[in-house]
């Protein structure tokens, strides 16, 4: 079974703190993704990576950065957390190169609260 794990299920941080969200997948997938999920808005793509050290901006990259130093690990960084970044963060991964039919496999999510 594909497994995508996220370092924390719940996280509470203060405004201005630097926040790291970690994601690890065990299926040797090339592509990894970070989404945020907000009620009534569905999932919105923050960043994705198609290879080690490679990254692409998604729809809402402002206020976030990412790091992919190893194939299995993709980190989301909030340089200076703000209250409007309170959300559920979901990591996903998938293989590449097989066209549009690949499914993405999701982690359980990290619910981040910024006070």
């Amino acid at each position, binding site marked *: 079974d594909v497994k*995508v794990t996220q370092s924390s*299920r719940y996280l509470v941080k203060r405004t201005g703190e630097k926040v790291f969200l970690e994601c690890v997948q065990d299926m040797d997938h090339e*592509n990894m*993704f970070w989404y945020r999920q907000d009620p*009534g*808005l*569905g*999932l*919105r*793509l923050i960043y*994705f990576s*198609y290879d080690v050290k490679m990254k*692409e901006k998604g729809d809402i990259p402002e206020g976030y950065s990412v790091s992919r130093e190893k194939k299995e690990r993709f980190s989301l960084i909030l340089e200076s957390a703000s209250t409007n970044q309170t959300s559920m963060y*979901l990591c*996903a991964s*998938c*293989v*590449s190169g*097989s*066209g*549009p*039919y*690949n*499914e*993405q496999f*999701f*982690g*359980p*999510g990290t619910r981040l609260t910024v006070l």
Partner: protein
Amino acid sequence: AQSVTQLDSHVSVSEGTPVLLRCNYSSSYSPSLFWYVQHPNKGLQLLLKYTSAATLVKGINGFEAEFKKSETSFHLTKPSAHMSDAAEYFCVVSGGGANNLFFGTGTRLTVIP
């Protein structure tokens, strides 16, 4: 451009009755379409996907969806709801690659005992 519209934000059914969750899509390409389910405090799990092999797609847990190109729809159905089906469901269209998924805003399904 690709987009998805889930026509109901909340659907409530009685246990044992049919489920219908509606989804309309817009796509510049021949679309790939998915339904994902999210149980409370869990990640998303793939229910089924349309890959152009057959217009009626069967998924896990008794769910199925029918691709109707003329109506640009991909509605999710199940003949008989179970309490464990209570969750949020997302319709998703691919923008031409796995890197490019467009999610609907979700439909929350409530099952009444």
